[in-house]
């Protein structure tokens, strides 16, 4: 056994041992103080694990998650006090309320990014506090709401609370583990890295985020209901206190954001501290000291330990155990000798079929930024199975045109028809589903994912059922390895994209967008800054796409590359198309020479070498 596998085995064994210890604790000890401390720890661990699904996986931080405790608690409390529904049933309704609330907030923030999410969650916590105080006929307002007392025998102490919360914690961690391993988790980590790019690859990011936030809130809502029954008295100021949210965030950051066990570990550190201080600090300044302690801790963790305890420990242990023999070179794997023909970059989808409608038709596209007309009445016709070049001086509007076509920049003027479907009003995922793919001038791969995972992220169609399947199915892995093999990158399959060179990243990004099985591929300066050998491989790949009937639109400054590849060329200047035709035709065009080439010789003659 190598030290590393020994470490993994130890880790595997620890989990059942810890769970068994927690299960048997109340049976062997009747110390109510520690039972109480563990109950509060379970609640915090549930909150932290839930928070981590949205904050750690998707990267959307919330400062208002204690609102779920309040919402779940009050729902349970009101049902128990007014309708005499058992809190252990009522808490499920509370969880449902939290799921609905989380879904609503996700809808409101669906078009905004992380910083707004923080603000909205923070504001909503305040808002719920205000509403609960004002709506006193329902909640008891600032007087508080008393719950019925537990009816079971005193000899059972707080066991029902203890075991239901422990069970809920196990379920929450299991859900979190499952999310990590699924396509849902893959999408969430991709969103954390680059949400725009993820949407461009066909991921319905709004749905991913909504599911993550609902999962985040539901179990904490249920826990809130049980908590309400446990304390038997709810008061708005205490329940909607922002300090509870702070404890949740603190537990996650301290333990390790984005890891599975970090939030639980953090909760088991933070909760006892919170417990000791809330009983230990007395007098008028007790509240201020708690603020000082937890505010200070939160700040210190954010500044000095941003990765958290678990990742730091793990990498430390790994380095210690691995000793000197750290870098085992990645073996290229078994030699899969494949012919290029057997490699499918694009699927057998609609491309080869009878559909001969043009890949892309653009009419009258316009976009102004303030007074600047970036794109001014552009028409394009891209047939299938043709390579079209788009050239023009810097600032002529080429990238803006790309951004309008792929939906990054919205516009009201003009139509975009992709494979016969109007997409000018569609969101980015829908455009990707319709068969649109693009690469960027500087490749944007997902840093949190391996190279293989990067390849299989794209989604040609959305299906809920697919979200729960494995990150990478064996069929997908097989195909991805074949693609990488063909690109000469098989050795990097399970490495991060940061291990790749700039040119290799460009190749992988191209392979990634081809996973969409597109009918149009837009390449933004594919050959810029990469070695001649890679550039040649890229040109071959583009040609083979043409053979398969894919339309290609490429922006490039390297005119030799353009001349070598393109069947037709559009020339853009000042936001408008000033010429179109074959490379020879536009090279002879007076307007093009004036606008773009100046009076220098036309560099087409060199031909072959890209």
């Amino acid at each position: 056994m190598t030290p590393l596998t020994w470490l993994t085995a130890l880790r595997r064994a620890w989990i059942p041992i810890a769970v068994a210890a927690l299960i048997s604790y109340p049976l062997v000890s009747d110390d109510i103080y520690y039972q109480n401390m563990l109950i509060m720890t379970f609640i915090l661990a549930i909150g932290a694990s839930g928070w981590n699904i949205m904050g750690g996986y998707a990267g959307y931080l919330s400062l208002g998650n204690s609102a779920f405790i309040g919402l779940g608690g009050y729902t349970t409390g009101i049902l128990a006090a007014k309708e005499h529904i058992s809190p252990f049933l009522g808490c499920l309704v509370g969880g449902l309320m939290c799921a609905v609330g989380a879904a609503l907030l996700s809808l409101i923030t669906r078009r905004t990014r992380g910083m707004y999410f923080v603000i909205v969650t923070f504001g909503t916590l305040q808002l719920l506090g205000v509403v609960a105080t004002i709506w006193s006929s329902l909640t008891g307002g600032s007087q508080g709401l008393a719950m019925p007392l537990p009816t079971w025998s005193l000899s059972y102490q707080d066991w029902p609370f203890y075991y239901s919360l422990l069970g809920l914690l196990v379920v929450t961690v299991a859900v979190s583990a499952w999310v990590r391993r699924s396509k849902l988790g893959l999408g969430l980590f991709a969103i954390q890295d680059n949400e725009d790019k993820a949407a461009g690859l066909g991921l319905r990011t709004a749905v991913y985020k909504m599911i993550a936030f609902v999962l985040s809130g539901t179990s904490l809502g249920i826990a809130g209901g049980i908590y309400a029954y446990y304390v038997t008295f709810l008061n708005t100021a205490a329940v909607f206190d922002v300090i509870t949210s702070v404890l949740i965030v603190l537990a996650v950051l301290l333990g390790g954001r984005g890891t599975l066990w970090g939030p639980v570990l953090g909760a088991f550190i933070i909760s006892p501290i919170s417990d000791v201080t809330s009983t230990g600090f007395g007098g008028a300044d007790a509240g201020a000291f708690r603020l000082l302690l937890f505010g200070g801790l939160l700040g210190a963790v954010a500044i000095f330990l941003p990765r958290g305890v678990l990742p730091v420990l793990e990498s430390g242990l790994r380095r210690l155990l691995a000793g000197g023999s750290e870098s085992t070179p990645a073996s290229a794997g078994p030699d899969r000798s494949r012919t290029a023909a057997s490699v499918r970059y694009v699927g057998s989808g609609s491309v080869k079929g009878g559909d001969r409608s043009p890949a892309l038709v653009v009419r009258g596209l316009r976009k102004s930024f303030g007074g600047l007309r970036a794109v001014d009445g552009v028409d394009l016709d891209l047939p299938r199975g043709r390579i079209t070049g788009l050239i023009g001086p810097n600032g002529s509007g080429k990238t803006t045109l790309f951004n309008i076509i792929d939906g990054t920049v919205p516009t009201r003027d003009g139509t975009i028809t992709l494979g016969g479907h109007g997409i000018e009003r569609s969101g980015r995922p829908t455009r990707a589903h319709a068969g649109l793919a693009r690469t960027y001038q500087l490749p944007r791969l997902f840093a949190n994912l391996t190279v293989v995972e990067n390849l299989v992220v794209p989604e040609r169609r959305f299906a809920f059922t697919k979200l729960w399947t494995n990150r990478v199915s064996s069929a997908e892995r097989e195909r991805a390895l074949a693609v990488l093999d063909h690109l000469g990158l098989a050795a990097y399959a399970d490495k991060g994209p940061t291990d790749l060179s700039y040119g290799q990243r460009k190749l992988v990004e191209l392979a990634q967008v081809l996973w969409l099985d597109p009918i149009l591929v837009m390449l933004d300066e594919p050959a810029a800054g990469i070695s001649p050998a890679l550039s040649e491989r890229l040109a071959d790949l583009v040609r083979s796409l043409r053979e398969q009937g894919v339309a290609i639109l490429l922006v490039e400054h390297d005119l030799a590359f353009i001349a070598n590849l393109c069947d037709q060329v559009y020339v853009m200047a000042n936001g408008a198309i000033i010429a179109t035709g074959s490379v020879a035709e536009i090279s002879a065009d007076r307007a093009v020479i004036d606008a773009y080439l100046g009076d220098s010789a036309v560099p087409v003659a060199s031909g072959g070498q890209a």
Partner: protein
Amino acid sequence: MIDLGQALIFGILIGGVYALMATGLTLTFGVMKIVNMAQGAFLITSTYLCYALWQHFGLDPVLAAFLVMFPMAALGFVVYKLVIERLERIDPGLTIVATFALALVAEAFLALIWGPNQRATDPAYSNQAIHLGPLVLPVAQFYACLLAVVITVVLQVAIKRTWLGHAITAASENPEGARLVGVEPARIGAWIFAIATASTAFGGAALSFLYQFTPDTQDFWLGLTLSVVIVGGLGSVPGAFAAGVLLGVTESLTTTYLSVRWATAVPTLLILVVLTVRPRGLFTRMTRQDAGS
């Protein structure tokens, strides 16, 4: 009708004050894309400092603000250098967490020094009023709004006319380009942050004679200033003013026709409504997004 007119007058005057309180956030959030969750705490710290000067030396809160702005600027500079500059490089989300942590620490210190009881300054004008026919123009609100206009105009002129102002604009719109011409965005950032924090002195002074305050009101003021900035559209100063007035009028109408207790819910409700309808804020212009990428 008179109720309505009165509510509008209150709303507009208070709206100007809200814009003033949010000035710092308009700069940091709008220009630097940094969400400073300590804005409310900075504001209330300024308020307490003005209060202390007023209490011990009888200094008018507005005059006190001209002194308070220096320690506040220094505080902002230090916070930027020690916390924000470092965290923005790792993960902007951590900046949000860290500034929020800072707000809690500041609140704790204020509570330890001044206690949890309500305070207020009451300079002579704090309960005077000018009568315009049937309508009442409260002098304190009027002065505060005047102060808001003056500070805003001064800041606007400074941004449009001075070298630092040009550098700020350049660094925010195109950091790469700014670096090329010798403007280091990180150094500019510290200055913007210092100016933003200094500006809370004036918002804080206005707060000190318009409202009763306690340390734990900082998160209410944070919510309110965030609302001004989001509703106004990030970073637009006229937008912040318009949003302040919208917020003030809505609150004032809510107080008049519904209940003063619901008025505290208005800032968050406006955020939710605006994000649903127009996520970029009510008063924004589109800019080119791909510059530098």
